[in-house]
């Protein structure tokens, strides 16, 4: 296709992506260097027969004029990045001097909002991704052994958790797991602990959200693995059976190597999706004990008094860097393959 034709065909979608994905990333980058204005204060002198007092009040008018003039806020450089709510460089060096043991130090650091969120996000990725791969693979193997006639409805049932939006999925689970729901109430009876509830402990909340993540993402892994299983050639499998390979050996040495590229694909997609975990925190009302990077940004953007654009943008930039680190190995590999292919 000539370049000119390509250009006209690609223009609409290219424009949409540049305007609404490319530019916002740049806009986020710019915003992250600004912080909201401080309020302008003025001294007011009040005199009465007993003398004069000077008090400091907020000058509403001047503040709003300043906000209108420079809506982006004041230039802050990397100030937002290093403040207490983000990288907290100062606080960390303080903790380093103050604390005696490494455990104490880590405790202190993971109490800072950014590191707390990072810790949760990484824990979530670390537990959900491998379990999703494993459970998806087992379901695929298992369904593949079931008679073809009834597979259709079974597949439909299996993919339900994936097609609902995360907020709805987590709400539906939350209503069951909560102390007043069917599972929560029965757990209380079984454990004989009337105060046992999701919100009572941080660990329980984390475990619940991780279980939700596995529940929500496994169907995707299942669908892809199931399709890949249909393409496994029969001859080597039959040869292996004749040679006396056990079921486990067949899966380990024939099926798995065949679908290996698909496994990396699913792992990558699932890692990308898990890194932006956000809606389940709202669905489970777990803001108190579990916060993710995406949730921090959301929280800044729905702030009641002033929207903290700068703070949200700084967290966004660091999230994008996180995504870049996750994607880097894949991109480097693609590039190498592309170069050798040429």
């Amino acid at each position, binding site marked *: *296709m000539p370049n000119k*034709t*390509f250009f006209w*065909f*690609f223009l*609409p*979608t*290219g424009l*949409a992506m540049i*305007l*609404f*994905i490319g530019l916002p*990333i740049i806009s*986020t980058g710019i*915003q992250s260097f600004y912080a909201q204005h401080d309020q302008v204060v003025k001294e007011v002198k009040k005199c009465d027969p007993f003398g004069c007092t000077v008090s400091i009040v907020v000058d509403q008018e001047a503040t709003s004029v300043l906000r209108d003039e420079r*809506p982006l806020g004041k230039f802050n450089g990397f100030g937002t990045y290093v403040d207490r709510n983000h990288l907290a460089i100062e606080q960390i060096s303080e903790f380093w001097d103050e604390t005696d043991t490494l455990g104490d130090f880590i405790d202190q650091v993971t109490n800072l909002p950014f590191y707390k969120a990072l810790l949760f996000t990484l824990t979530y990725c670390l537990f959900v991704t491998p379990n999703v791969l494993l459970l998806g693979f087992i*379901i695929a193997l*298992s369904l593949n052994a079931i008679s073809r006639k009834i597979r*259709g409805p079974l*597949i*439909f*049932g*299996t*993919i*339900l958790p994936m*097609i609902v*939006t995360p907020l709805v999925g987590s*709400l539906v689970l939350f209503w069951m797991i909560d102390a*007043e*729901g*069917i599972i929560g*109430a*029965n757990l209380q009876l079984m454990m004989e602990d009337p105060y046992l509830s999701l919100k009572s402990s941080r660990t329980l909340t984390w475990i619940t959200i991780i279980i939700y993540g596995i*529940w929500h993402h496994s*169907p*995707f892994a299942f*669908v*892809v693995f199931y*399709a*890949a299983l249909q393409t496994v050639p*029969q001859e080597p*499998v*039959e040869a292996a059976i004749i040679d006396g390979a056990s079921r486990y050996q067949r899966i380990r040495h024939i*099926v798995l190597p065949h679908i290996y*590229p*698909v496994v990396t*694909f699913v792992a990558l997609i699932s890692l990308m999706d898990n*890194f*932006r975990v956000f809606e389940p925190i*709202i669905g489970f009302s777990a803001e108190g004990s579990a916060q993710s*990077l*995406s949730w921090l*940004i*959301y929280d800044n*953007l*729905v702030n009641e008094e002033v929207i903290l*654009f700068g703070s*949200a943008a700084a967290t*966004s930039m660091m999230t*994008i860097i996180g995504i870049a680190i996750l994607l880097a190995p894949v991109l480097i590999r693609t590039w190498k393959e592309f170069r050798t292919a040429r």
Partner: protein
Amino acid sequence: MEYGLDKRSNALKTFNTTFIIIWLLIACFPFIWTFWGSFKVRADFFSRADWWYAISAFNTLIETGGQFTSNAYSEAWTEGEFWKASRNTIIVTVFVVTISLFLGTLGAYALSRSTERYAFWILIAALIFRAMPHITLVSGYLFPFFELQIWGILPTTIVVLVAINQPFTLWLLYSFFKTVPKELDESALIDGCSYFQAFRYIIMPVMWPGVITAGLFSLMLAYNDFTVTALLLNQENHTMVPKIQSYLGTNQHEGNLMWAVSAVVSATAPLFMLVMFFQRQVISGLTTGAVKG
């Protein structure tokens, strides 16, 4: 994988069946339970006294005189203005699907027929864009949208959702277009068609399965979106998912929880119907990119 030689022992078969049944219970029961509970009153579905009330309908009988009640639905749809939210969802979904398919088919066709190196880089860039968490993009939108005074209205959200959806649509349609033989449009070009005519009259008619799949995924994205719609729309224009969240209230015990339950069921039912109808397309869409490597 139906092994002709493979003989499964009965124990394995039983184990397999049990596993599938347990998994299906885990996957489906929450939805069935929510559907069941949406016809009860709050004191039953969220019972502090005894969870069995949700089944025996103890309080529902006292409050409404019947085993089942559709009060939650009628209140949420009228008083809770869920009708408005669902109307907004329909508007957003219809426009997002139409526009994304239009832009996506054009772009993906060009990508699949180009032999230049930049086509490869565009696809890689699309992959990177696909990985961006939506909330980071929203944090980039808010400020300029406030300044331009286009925040809060449906058209802005539609355009944003279309753009966010493009990378995935492009990849999906690209792999579908790749399966259409090049000779088809080349012969049309030799016969004197322009590229656009070849695309419109030769390629599109054989592309319907791919277009339906891509359309379904755009639809699911627009229908299910929370991040963009919650932050870019004002209260009046909220679609279904942010509306459900607003029923929850800040504290779980304020807000009208049963409205949320019935709203969840109302929002999920059409989606399930759709997927039941188009199950084959959804699965082929999820696997085209993956299986062909």
